[in-house]
């Protein structure tokens, strides 16, 4: 177990992060049913080990681009839960001033570039950001999360080719949750071993159990190290599963409850908690305390969102163009 080489504090921090995602989203779903949050709300529940494990392997200056299922990524990157919740409430105290909502969380100061909701369209942007870093001789890498659905888009293939051709430092993280909305992997990909798409672009790749936080950490650290030493891109496929519906509108007619229940046995949170307990890196008492802290932080996030304010309608056309045209 890799965690043995890490200290107790680190393990606790990770448990806090992964728990925070779960409780934050459970609360968000609740607020959605109360109509406090509207539009699309895509929950990451079940997949939390991926964002938690990958992002901990990055440095703060590294860029992150994620999908519309990105609450977890934003939280692990260190964005304030209250500011994220306020965004989902559409309040101007939100990270995107309420203009984006659940699918468009941005925080430039934390190098968090969305919140991108056209499937596959942020992959070329990630390549461009990595190209810029290379040209500007910055050491940062760009990490791009996407689902296996995106891997069927032409832009996935264009981005893989460009990244490898230009040898730019991108970590492509495929969050393979087995369903592109409601259509299973076997109906969408001729080659279902997704990591094999790496070598066809001369790109290093690997697959990891995305339900196992420690395994994701180990695989990500390895991938990141390789990118930093070679300057070349890497494709990391994380096999995972979404416990909840695709969005709040999804009636889940395409999969058996039995299948979902089977996957729930692999829940990354108890798995990681038990591993920490077993390694004596945490005590049950401390686990309980962490749970309490998470509850408290989620409560505070809701309070922050509730007390937030809506932008005046007079501001409607703000941010369409920059105020100062010549810079």
């Amino acid at each position, binding site marked *: 177990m890799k965690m043995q080489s890490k200290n107790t504090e680190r393990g606790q921090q990770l448990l806090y992060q992964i728990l925070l995602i779960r409780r934050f989203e459970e609360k968000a779903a609740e607020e959605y049913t109360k109509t406090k949050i509207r539009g699309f709300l895509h929950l990451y529940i079940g997949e939390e080990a991926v964002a938690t494990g990958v992002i901990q392997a990055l440095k703060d200056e590294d860029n992150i681009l994620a999908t519309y299922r990105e609450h977890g990524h934003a939280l692990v990157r260190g964005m304030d839960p209250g500011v994220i919740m306020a965004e989902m409430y559409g309040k101007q105290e939100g990270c995107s001033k309420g203009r984006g909502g659940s699918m468009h969380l*941005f925080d430039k100061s934390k190098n968090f570039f969305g919140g991108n909701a056209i499937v596959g369209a942020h992959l070329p942007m990630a390549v461009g950001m990595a190209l810029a870093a290379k040209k500007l001789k910055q050491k940062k890498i760009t990490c791009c999360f996407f689902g296996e659905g995106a891997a069927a888009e032409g832009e996935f293939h264009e981005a893989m080719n460009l990244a490898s051709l230009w040898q730019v430092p991108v970590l492509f993280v495929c969050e393979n949750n087995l369903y592109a909305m409601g259509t299973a992997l076997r109906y969408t990909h001729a080659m279902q071993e997704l990591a094999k798409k790496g070598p066809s672009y001369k790109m290093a790749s690997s697959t990891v159990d995305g339900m196992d936080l420690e395994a994701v950490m180990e695989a990500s650290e390895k991938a990141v190290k390789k990118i930093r030493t070679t300057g070349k891109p890497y494709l990391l496929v994380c096999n995972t599963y979404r416990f909840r519906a695709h969005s709040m509108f999804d009636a889940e007619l395409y999969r058996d409850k039995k299948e979902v229940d089977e996957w729930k046995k692999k829940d990354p949170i108890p798995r990681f908690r038990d591993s920490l307990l077993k390694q004596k890196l945490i005590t049950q008492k401390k686990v309980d305390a962490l749970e309490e802290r998470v509850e408290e932080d989620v409560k505070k996030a809701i309070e922050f969102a509730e007390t937030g304010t809506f932008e005046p309608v007079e501001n409607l056309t703000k941010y369409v163009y920059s105020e100062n045209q010549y810079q």
Partner: protein
Amino acid sequence: MSQTRKITYREALKEAIREALTENDKVFLMGEDVGRYGGAFAVSKGLLEEFSEERIMDVPLSESGFVGAGIGAAMAGLKPIVEVMTVNFGLLAMDQVVNNAATMLHMSGGQINVPVVIRMSCGIGKQLAAQHSHSWEPYYAHVPGLRVISIGTHEDARGVLQAALQSPDPVVIFEYTSMLNMEGELPEETIKVDIESAKIRREGTDISIITYGAAVNKCMEAAEELKVEGIEAEVLDLRVLRPLDEAAFLASVSRTHRALIVEDAWRSVSVSSEVSARITEKAFYELDVPVKRVCGAEVPIPYPLHLEDASVPQKKDIVEVVKKMIRP
């Protein structure tokens, strides 16, 4: 009078790119065949040798991929000039332009700028048939968040890029293949143009001919012919198709009391329909006669020359309509 020099539209475009590369290390040109081939239309010929592979980047045929990469590079602090070989292929990258470049600033609550410059050659002519003859400026002009510029003169061919690179917002520039070999006069000294305003290319008192792009030249020629008949036409080059310089055309119409809008693009849901609507909404009582339009015929452009010519406004069409508007 300051000294002038003769220059082709192509050479003016190239000078602008060279100047941008020379003055700013963060500027680079990327596009299909821009380097080793020298540019599909020879606009960037010689620049690879003059600069480097890092500054003049040949890219694979992946419009969405490299336009998206240009957007990402702009978000991360560079000033990319992305050349899409022709507007015909531009729609393959339309999602990147509309959903990423144009939305990012707004969607992020003002945090993230996309200072990318996208150049596309455009226009109808040379018997290239339905898939290679397009005037699609209106598609882009429809999108809030973009600055859409149409280069109808040598002055703009030389000056627009510099202004576009200073903009913190995404700028889409249309260049016209049919004008590349055309010679024009430019002053010896540096040209400064802005990318916010329309420009009167010829002053006149009897009618305002409002136009853009490759049609500017046809309108100027038509105006010269009309002069012989005693009609003084004002030619207003819109230049900026988004956001429109409404004040400029409303002022011109208020002086001449007649408005004709000329464009190569298909008539329906076009730039001319927008300009016409705004004149009707805001300067209706200034008009002596109804607004008229001379536009592209609503047909995929056919291959034979006589049919191709009939598909886009010609000088004689413009002259005819103006005469009817003035002496009904």
